[in-house]
């Protein structure tokens, strides 16, 4: 009979102790989970290696340098069918960013106006806005994207384009808009706009400082707006209007001049903006409602006017509630933009899909998708944490 092992306290070692003692049980449990995960990973890896070998596929990212041999009609940087897969992915990524940025701007505008209008004392307006919000929120966004796309591509052919003031044309290939042509001197106008923005920021700082010290109010908002708009406008006219418009002209088969926005981009943008806008409006509404009525009553008692109350008392407090869910809505919009694949807008997922079927590099392409979306979402949550910390300092 062997002597039972002793532990450090000199007690007899008992296997049952491993599961009844809380600390050792924790370690055993974690080891078990680790083992299970390792087994799953080993199972998957061995299968993957075997399957890839059978299919005769090389893994690795070398394929990114291969020629793409497919065209992309919606692109922000130079791209031809002779470019590489890597460049095609960059084009797709930029398209994702483009539609997300446009969508975020529009969704914010829609969401804030709808949120405020829904609280309006005007019975009719608040009902109409409620109907919009409830309907859009409860219909799948993919259905809305496809609906807008079907509607836009059912527009008249190029020959019978609908004309909007003879400057823009609407047809089943999208909307054709006049393109701005920058002539020499335009860089000064843009420079003036930048100077105007900087000056407005400095003016705002100065005005706040002066108000803190003397209590005198300076209308920095109007003055800043004047600087931002007025300064470039003056330079523009002084330099003899260095901006021309390349207005599209109707030719036999297509338009000449101007630039075209595809129905895919418009449909995706419209659907994402109205869908996310409905969610944002709910966030804005609950944010405004979360500011207690006493705050605005106190502001009135101090003699603030109603727009001042809104601007200086209600909105800063409501923003604290609004911003965190708002950023996650932005993230949702960006993720939903991947539904582009259903209507053929060439975003990251759609171009990645094309590459995936051409090159067979499934794992790598899916890895790139996940890496891009994950880093976007990690960036967003990092921003959210930073913002939450910053407003927490203001709170008492």
């Amino acid at each position, binding site marked *: 009979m062997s002597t039972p092992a002793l532990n450090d306290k000199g007690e007899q070692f008992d296997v049952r102790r491993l599961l009844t003692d809380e600390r050792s049980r*924790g370690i055993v*449990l*974690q080891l078990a*989970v*680790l083992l299970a*995960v390792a087994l799953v990973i080993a199972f*998957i890896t061995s*299968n*993957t290696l*075997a*399957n*890839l070998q*059978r299919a005769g596929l090389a893994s690795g990212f070398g394929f990114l340098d291969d020629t793409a041999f497919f065209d992309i009609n919606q692109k922000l940087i130079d791209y031809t069918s002779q470019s590489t897969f890597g460049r095609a992915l960059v084009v797709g990524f930029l398209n994702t960013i483009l539609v997300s940025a446009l969508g975020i701007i529009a969704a914010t505008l829609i969401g804030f106006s709808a949120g405020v209008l829904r609280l*309006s*004392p*005007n*019975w*009719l*307006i608040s009902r*109409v806005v409620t109907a919009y919000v*409830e*309907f859009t*929120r*409860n*219909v*799948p*966004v*993919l*259905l*809305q994207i*496809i*609906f807008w796309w*079907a*509607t836009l591509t*059912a527009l008249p052919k190029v020959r019978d384009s609908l004309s909007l003031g003879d400057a823009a044309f609407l047809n089943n290939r999208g909307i054709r808009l006049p393109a701005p042509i920058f002539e020499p001197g335009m860089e000064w106008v843009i420079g003036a706009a930048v100077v105007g923005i900087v000056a407005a920021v400095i003016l705002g700082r100065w005005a706040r400082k002066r108000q803190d010290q003397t209590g005198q109010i300076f209308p920095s908002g109007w003055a800043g707006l004047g600087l931002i708009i007025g300064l470039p406008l003056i330079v523009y006219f002084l330099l003899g209007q260095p901006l021309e418009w390349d207005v599209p002209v109707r030719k036999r088969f297509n338009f000449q001049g101007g630039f075209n926005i595809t129905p895919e981009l418009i449909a995706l943008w419209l659907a994402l903006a109205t869908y996310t806008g409905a969610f944002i409006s709910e966030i804005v509404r609950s944010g405004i409602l979360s500011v207690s009525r006493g705050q605005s009553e106190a502001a009135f008692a101090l003699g603030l006017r109603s727009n001042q109350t809104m601007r200086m008392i209600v909105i800063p407090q409501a923003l604290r509630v609004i911003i965190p869910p708002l950023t996650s809505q932005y993230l949702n919009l960006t*993720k*939903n933009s*991947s*539904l582009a*694949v*259903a209507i053929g807008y060439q975003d990251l*997922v759609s171009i990645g*899909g094309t590459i*995936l079927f051409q090159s067979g590099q*499934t*794992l790598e392409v*899916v890895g790139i*998708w*996940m890496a891009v*979306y*994950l880093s*976007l*979402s*990690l960036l967003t949550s990092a921003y959210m944490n930073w913002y939450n910390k910053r407003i927490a300092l203001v709170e008492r």
Partner: protein
Amino acid sequence: MYEPFHRTTDDMLRERPAPAATVGVIGWLRTNLFAGWINTALTLVTLYILWLAIPSFIGWAFIDAQLAGNDRFACTGDGACWAWLDQRINQFLYGFYPSEETWRVNIAFVLLFPALAPWLMENVPGDRYLRWFSVAYPVIATILLVGGFGLEVVQTDKFGGFMLNLTVGLAGIVLSLPIGIVLALGRQSRLPLIRWFSIIFIEAVRGVPLITLLFVSNIILPIFLPPDMALDSVIRVIVMVTAFASAYMAEVIRGGLQAIPKGQYEAAQAMGLNYSKAMRLIILPQALKISIPGIVNTFIGLFKDTTLVIVIGLFDILGIANAMVSNPDWLGLSTETYVVVALFFFSVCFSMSRYSIRLERRLDTDKR
């Protein structure tokens, strides 16, 4: 002595009615529609838009509409063409499910309500037995839909239409509930390894779009598994949707766990309950109860997201609609088709969200 001057009457003065402009219809109109010129302008513009939109929509959808016919050429008027509804409704509901077997889908659908009732309503008669029934329901529904046990076997590639949306959505929610509970507990665990695995899984899944996960189900799962373990496409979708939903479910349940006062945890410990008993008997029953509205909301989101299966080639209700719109017999009916599908989703999701709001209010008063 100082006598103040009094004006005296024998009768009490009757109160006068409020000014006519502040009461009744006129008063309501003035305060709710025409308060100030901005409001008046907004009201008039809105009324004008509604005046343009509503009569033309009603004319299109009802008055000028064509109800019957075998294809789009039967529709000659300016209005909507509803002829396809009569012809295709079965495809929209059941996909390619054999038409002599659709009664099984109907029974599974009807049985869904008694299965859900004990969890979503209070004071359901006989709810102790119904709870056992709901536990058995997934098995019953699977047998009904797939077949076996004397029923004719229906391959899952025949699943489609609304039935596919409902199957994928419900399977995703039901399967993700236990996984979500484990992940939520794991995320709060004191054991670092378990906590980190849970956090990585939850954040990784929540960080990527569902569509990429569906692509994974279609092209990566076959690579990950040995060739003889091929899953059919509906099961693959359910696997990925479950993974997706459980990450969201974990966050909903974490919210419920965090809402339970600390005293409950401490009281459970003071009673000498160990971790699993404390969780099973004290914490989870309370946390799950307050999570029900969140779970319903997750289901609404998931149900809307089941339309994404069209990108990997399944024919859910939206896929059937797409197929019909591009069918030569019904070409050009996209507005009618998509409006019907949208109204359909709206009525299902809207009523569920109303219900979850009501539930939330009721649970809120319970707590106080």
